[in-house]
């Protein structure tokens, strides 16, 4: 038969009609086969054995987990933490929400019964645990678990992520009763509790009864994980592309229970692949929460799918995370040592163009060294607005007011013709969505500042005081972070147009390492990260003290990668260290820091890290949103995602 088929090809068609006949018959056969095959193939559900309307499917931004059978997230480079492990299984003493928090409470005593209690000089911290909380294997959480966790971490600083931190800070830790633990610190530290306070992640509590049986806890794979959270591991892909968690029958004995019963019976974290696939999967209602996608992908998804929505109901849709992307300048390089030069570079930037190039207009801009997110507009941006308007710079030839308070409004007006009603009109809403003001682009003032700093313009190009050309290389993460790469490209263009030869160096995997090692000139990165819901700035600021500053070209530990040193900065930090975490004086000191940073411009803040998290309401309702209920960050890799579980409820849909 095969021979006949083969040799039928040899028949020469006697006319065009027979040739056409042959082609049409073949195409019809192929189409019919595809149609039949398609019907057979379409039978598979997205998930096996679980009704779609009982499972919340979220994106795991870590992608495919290399060794999915290892759940030990205490080690230096854990295999997968955003698989649902830190969101649903583990827990720790306290959480600070990056937004308003459930019941408008930013602070949550999760495993702890109360806030941390310090002695007068902050050399001792006492923690009381909540009684009655159970591990998923039926054992009660007690003070022994906390003591064991700290002692185990301290004993192996290289084997555990927080081992060195515990070893550096803790002199001794002991349980004074079943639910009380006392820490004696090696030196006063009013923020030691931050180690056990979640802002995305924190030091998780280990189940002592499980780990103490292991010869080497740092080598233990913790599989299956014993959870203190409201969910346990149901199943996972041995290839690392999905993890499914199931609500515990005894959820009432978990820390989340004081807010209510979690809604989803199952939660799946999957690797959906590149941004385009995430959009397709949500349009097919196979992905409830897209962790992040490109601005264009988010706009297309929200426009085309009536059930898809972002954090903001309208433009810019994205959730502004409490992280501040910026141009990080290496202040230890000679060419960046003078604040007038750094200010000149800032004044050459057209932030509206950078916004359009990077986020397509969906950025929330910030002129100051805190992100315009969570409660910070209330604590910092609104109070600082008048000071910023009054702030002046001496260019050497005149005094200017560089701040434009209407920049956010201007961006909104720029977008309104194309986006229509998606752009808010209310000034408060505009400020929340697009930011307050930014520095006016002023090439003339920038030139004056450069001349004041001793630079000269020769043949249209700026020369440094030593006669060498003033050039800048801006490092970016390339395709790994396209939004920041686009921003960096445009900034390089703007500087070049002004006579400072600038170029981009795309380093998808090496940019951060270069920054750590002081091998960068300028980087599109961030050195500011905050709690979001709480005004205390020490989350990033404490590490900027000059005691931690390394020599030029040497490894710089997080986070002072601009390598900025200022005695006034040290004073501010030392004052913050001496007061309680909740002391309102902390906000005043925070504003002192902001003013100092504005005057010195050690880095050039641009905008908040807007995450295009898109949520599908086909199967679930109750997601957090900016306007209706900003109870937590919708970005599903945050440990705070657990708070979403108590608000999410099924819509009752059985199919899309």
């Amino acid at each position, binding site marked *: 038969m095969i021979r006949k088929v083969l040799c039928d*090809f*040899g028949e*020469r*068609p006697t006319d065009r009609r027979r*040739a056409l006949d042959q*082609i049409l018959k073949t195409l019809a056969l192929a189409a019919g086969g595809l149609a039949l095959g398609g019907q057979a*193939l379409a039978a*598979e559900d*997205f*998930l*096996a*054995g679980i009704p779609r309307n009982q499972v919340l499917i979220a994106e795991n931004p870590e992608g*495919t987990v*290399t060794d999915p059978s*290892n759940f030990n997230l205490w080690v*230096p*480079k854990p295999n997968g933490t955003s698989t649902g492990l830190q969101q649903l299984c583990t827990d720790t003493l306290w959480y600070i929400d990056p937004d308003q928090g459930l019941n408008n409470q930013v602070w949550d005593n999760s495993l702890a019964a109360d806030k941390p209690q310090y002695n007068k000089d902050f050399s001792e911290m006492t923690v009381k645990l909540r009684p009655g909380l159970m591990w998923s294997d039926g054992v009660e959480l007690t003070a022994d678990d906390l003591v064991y966790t700290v002692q185990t971490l301290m004993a192996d*600083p*290289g084997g555990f*992520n*927080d081992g*060195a931190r515990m*070893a*550096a*800070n803790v002199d001794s830790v002991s349980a004074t009763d079943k639910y009380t633990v006392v820490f004696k610190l090696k030196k006063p530290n009013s923020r030691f509790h*931050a*180690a056990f306070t979640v802002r*995305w992640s*924190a030091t998780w509590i280990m189940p002592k009864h499980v780990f103490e049986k292991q010869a080497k806890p740092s*080598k233990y794979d913790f599989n299956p994980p014993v959870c203190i959270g409201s969910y346990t591991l149901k*199943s996972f*892909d*041995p*290839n690392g*592309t*999905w993890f*499914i968690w199931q609500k515990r029958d005894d959820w009432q004995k978990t820390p989340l229970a004081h807010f209510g019963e979690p809604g989803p019976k199952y939660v*799946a974290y*999957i690797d*959906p*692949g*590149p941004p385009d*696939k995430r959009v*397709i*999967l949500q*349009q*097919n209602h196979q992905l409830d929460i897209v962790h992040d996608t490109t601005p264009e992908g988010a706009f297309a998804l929200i426009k085309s799918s009536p059930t898809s929505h972002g954090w903001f109901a309208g433009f810019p849709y994205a959730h502004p995370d409490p*992280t501040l992307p910026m141009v990080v300048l290496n202040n230890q390089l000679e060419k960046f040592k003078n604040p007038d030069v750094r200010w000149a570079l800032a004044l050459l930037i057209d932030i509206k163009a950078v916004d359009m190039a990077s986020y397509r207009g969906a950025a929330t801009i910030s002129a100051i060294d805190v992100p315009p997110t969570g409660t910070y507009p209330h604590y910092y941006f609104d109070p600082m607005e008048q000071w910023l308007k009054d702030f002046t710079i001496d260019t050497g030839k005149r005094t200017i007011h560089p701040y434009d308070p209407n920049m956010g409004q201007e961006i909104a007006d720029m977008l309104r013709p194309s986006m229509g009603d998606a752009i808010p009109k209310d000034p408060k809403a505009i400020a929340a969505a697009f930011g307050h003001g930014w520095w006016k682009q002023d090439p003339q003032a920038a030139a004056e500042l450069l001349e004041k700093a001793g630079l000269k313009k020769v043949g249209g190009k700026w020369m440094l005081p030593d006669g060498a050309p003033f050039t800048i290389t801006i490092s970016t993460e390339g395709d790994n972070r396209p939004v920041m790469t686009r921003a960096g490209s445009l900034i390089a263009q703007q500087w070049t147009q002004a006579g400072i030869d600038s170029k981009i160096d795309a380093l998808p*995997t*090496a940019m*951060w*390492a270069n920054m750590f*090692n002081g091998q960068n000139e300028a980087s599109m990165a961030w050195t500011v*990260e905050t709690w979001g819901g709480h005004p205390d700035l020490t*989350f990033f600021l404490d*590490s900027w003290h000059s005691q*931690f500053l390394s020599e030029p070209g040497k*490894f710089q*530990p*997080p986070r002072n990668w601009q390598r900025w040193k200022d005695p006034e900065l040290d004073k501010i930090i030392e004052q913050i260290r001496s007061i309680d975490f909740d002391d309102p004086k902390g906000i005043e000191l925070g504003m002192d820091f902001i003013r100092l940073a504005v005057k010195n411009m050690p880095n050039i803040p641009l905008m908040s890290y807007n995450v295009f998290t898109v949520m599908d309401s086909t199967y679930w309702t109750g997601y957090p949103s900016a306007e209706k209920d900003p109870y937590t960050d919708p970005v599903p890799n945050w440990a705070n995602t657990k708070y979403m579980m108590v608000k999410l409820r099924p819509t009752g849909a059985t199919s899309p």
Partner: protein
Amino acid sequence: MAGYALYVLRRFGQFLLVVFVGINIAFFVTHATPIDPITSAIAAATRFSQADPQAVQMTRVALRELYGLQGSLWEQYVAFWMRVARADFGPALSAFPTPVSTLIWRALPWTFGLLSVATLIAWGLGNLLGGLAGYYRRNVMLKVFGVVASGLQPIPNYVMAFVVLVLFGYVWPILPITGSAQINLAQGWTFAYFHSVFQHALLPVLSLVLVGTGAWFIGMRALVSNIVTEDYVTYAELGGVDHRRILLSYVMRNALMPQVTGLALSLGLIFNGAVITEVVFGYPGLGNLLIRAVYAGDYSLVIGIASMSIIAVAFAALVIDLILPLLDPRVRVA
């Protein structure tokens, strides 16, 4: 026979030399990269979390010891070859302490399955239709197929992958677009699992076959077009030998020799993985593993995958070189 034995020894020596040089290059290139796995680990741990600068310095020192990265480059090189001699590439730095070999063996079956099936289908289809097209030069359908195959062949893999993804995952959503099998389906020797694996493999295989068939088609058509002008073919035709017999026994059989060589080399290249296809479709193969290892600065894993690929390709070439003289008497070994 003695000549052949000598040839085998010589050729095997070449194989060992190629493998040795290749693995050395992999070692030095990966160690020359500016990506420091320790800094990568610390960056990953501290990018969104609070970090105690003093503690981070302590962690750096401790990690270097834990990962076995202390010592000079020469000391690391010697330690590396001592492990390789035991077929041990050490622990993966991005999935410490899981051994590199464990991760490779986990990913290998997926890559092997995907690429061997795609390669064999593309090879079979391309050579069959190319052979027919070269012999029946007036057939309209074969001409149309030739145009289509030649048109698809230069399309980059990643473009074709996205086209089929959009077509069958979005426009006409009949096929799964991510993963190797249905979510929550237990792995096992069951019909349901194999059916699911089959469905999930369709799109990646289709994207590879569409692009890969063209090259074989064009090559085979050219070979057959040459062979049909040979004297022995003309003689057979004049002698009244059946056309079917001429096609299969005189023409295609001879044209297949270089194509078989090409197939063996292509099968050897399977161990490189299909990086883009696997990433686009979320297929858990070697390509996916390699890209993650590169991004993480995990040079243990990169070296492990590269070494396996070097050995596989060199071995495939060795096998071809050893078998060919036995099959084709025209090939001389001395």
